[in-house]
């Protein structure tokens, strides 16, 4: 007679939108995700959903080392897939291989990262949002909320997209406030918690903490209380637990670039192209964000977040 657990969570079935009868194509999706990252998990869910609907043989692979990612693209070319959906965190490193794919007659769409270069790389379309843009938006909103000293928590070192977000925040704050970075060891909750707490103790003037991933927002809540700091908590990206924290007001808002949409569109658009020659966006970037999830709209999002598609 226990509450919680799976029984309580039943009923959150994943989206399924019919089923196409078009020929079965193989499409490869290659990202720079670090394994086990919630954000990329959602992207993949979107992609698989589209693949299921479009009768596509979906091959996902990822590596956060650009050189390795390039190799993965090469693998896809060797495997003669029908289409490639790829993220490009490091244009110089990855574009050449993407060009190869295009040269080999494989349609390529880009998403999530590489907004400035997707045309040069020869991709057909781009879905998503530039991390910097998202950062700037967040920064502006932080400034509006009266944040003067913002702590930007990076869960990994030397990762382009994370750095871009913090840089964006700084830019968005403009003269209103200052931004300070803090690297934490994302693979160790205990040290994440303590490190953030330590920082808050060290600099009492910090009045806003923004994490770059949902799980770290949850942990940061404990850090803030531990350091008995008055800083408010903001974050990028979402997951179920975090949404509930927004409900409860422990997290102010989350920057949402709708990862599900990015993954879904990337695959779906390739299917449309392969089956019907369509292209989306007329050569323009298709932006999936940034949008904000806060007290005002959290209720709507919550149910989707529960089943891990938002």
């Amino acid at each position, binding site marked *: *007679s*226990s*509450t*919680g*657990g*799976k*029984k*309580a*969570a039943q009923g959150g079935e*994943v989206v399924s939108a019919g089923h196409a009868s078009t020929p079965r194509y193989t499409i490869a999706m290659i990202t720079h995700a*670090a*394994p*086990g*990252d*919630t954000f990329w*998990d959602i992207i993949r*869910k979107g992609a698989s959903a589209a693949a299921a609907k479009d009768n596509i043989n979906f091959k996902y692979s990822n590596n956060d080392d650009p050189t390795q990612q390039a190799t993965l693209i090469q693998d896809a070319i060797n495997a003669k897939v029908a289409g490639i959906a790829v993220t490009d965190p490091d244009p110089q490193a990855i574009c050449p291989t993407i060009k190869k794919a295009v040269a080999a007659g494989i349609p390529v769409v880009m998403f999530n990262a590489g907004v400035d270069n997707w045309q040069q790389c020869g991709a057909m379309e781009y879905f998503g949002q530039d991390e910097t843009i998202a950062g700037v938006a967040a920064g502006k909103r932080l400034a509006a909320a009266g944040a003067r000293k913002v702590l930007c928590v990076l869960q990994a*070192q030397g990762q382009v997209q994370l750095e871009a977000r913090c840089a964006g925040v700084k830019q968005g704050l403009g003269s209103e406030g200052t931004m*300070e*970075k*803090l*690297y934490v*060891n*994302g*693979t*160790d*909750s*205990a*040290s994440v*918690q*303590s*490190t953030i*707490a*330590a*920082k808050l*103790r*060290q*600099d009492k003037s910090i009045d806003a903490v923004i994490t770059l991933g949902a*799980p770290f927002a*949850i*942990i940061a809540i*404990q850090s803030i209380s*531990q*350091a008995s700091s008055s800083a408010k908590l903001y974050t990028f990206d979402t*997951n*179920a*637990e975090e949404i509930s924290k927004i409900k409860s007001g422990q997290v102010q808002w989350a920057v949402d670039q709708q990862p599900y949409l990015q993954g879904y569109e990337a695959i779906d658009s390739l299917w449309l192209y392969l089956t019907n020659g369509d292209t989306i966006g007329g050569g323009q970037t298709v932006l999936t964000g940034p949008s904000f999830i806060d007290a005002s709209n959290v209720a709507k999002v919550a149910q989707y977040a529960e089943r*891990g598609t938002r």
Partner: protein
Amino acid sequence: MTQTAQADLTPSPLRDERVGRNSVLARLFARPEMGAVSGAIVIFLLFFIIAPPFRSAGSLATVLYVASTFGLMSAPIALLMIGGEFDLSAGVAVTSSALTASLFSYEFTVNVWAGVAVALAVSLAIGFLNGWIVVRTGIPSFLVTLGTFFMLQGLNLALTQTITNQVASPDISEIQGFSAAQKVFASSFTIGGVNIRTTIIYWIVVVFIATWILLRTHVGNWIFSVGGSAPSARAVGVPVAKMKIGLFMGVGLLAWFTGMHTLFEFNTIQSGQGVGNEFVYIIAAVVGGCLLTGGYGSAVGAAIGALIFGMTQQGIVYAGWDPDWFTFFEGALLLGAIVLNTFIRRRAEASR
């Protein structure tokens, strides 16, 4: 040819003319952990001086907490290394146990204690498997546990995905028995306004027991011998295989405990967690005076190693140094501590 006077040949019980005077300092530094102690003191003073926030009792409690999360594991790892083996799967094994507990109770919606029990079984099984493969095949444990490291890492992710189709374990704080378990594994008490985690107490207890086993029991004798020279140990009748498997299971036991702490501290577990910690444990042990080649070291030393690591990690933040330079400083301080440690021991030995 010269003909020196006949020296007396009978042993002199009172004073042995073949032994020079032996300074206290020297005898002190003969112990494997003393080098680390000096390193710890230096680093402590360093941050105590340059980082005001570091001085507050609260901060120290935090430092100790972090140290304890490493220290709880570095103790059995130290024993394992004294026994001449490595365990690279220790870091992810912690996550595995936490995931097992939470997924089990979630999937079957049973009392968390059931999950905790299953997790214990699994952790011990992992330890046993590591040890068994090592002793059966004679493949260096470095390789075997590297294999299991990859496999566990994969399993953590894959199983979490298939069961919850997310990359993190679900929140189990609603499930029956949670609060009780939390009391046991992840509570804290307050002394003079300072909030102290119970893990620190557990840590001290574990280190004490490990030390006692190592120095006072025959099991300790056997651990030293299997690490120092397995063939010799075998020749005089020490059950080498049993010892090694036991040591691996010891690691499993504390991996389970640490996992339980993490789970009930954070209610949920990222499946990607724990990767890289195996090295923190090993570093702690080695900084604490354990030989990588086995046969020498101490549990206390490993604890101090963990403390050094915790202080460094937190201290840099308290000092507010440029985050870009974080890892650099971490490395520099680590290396510094080790060099100092070695240097001091040398001096002591020479001067004695």
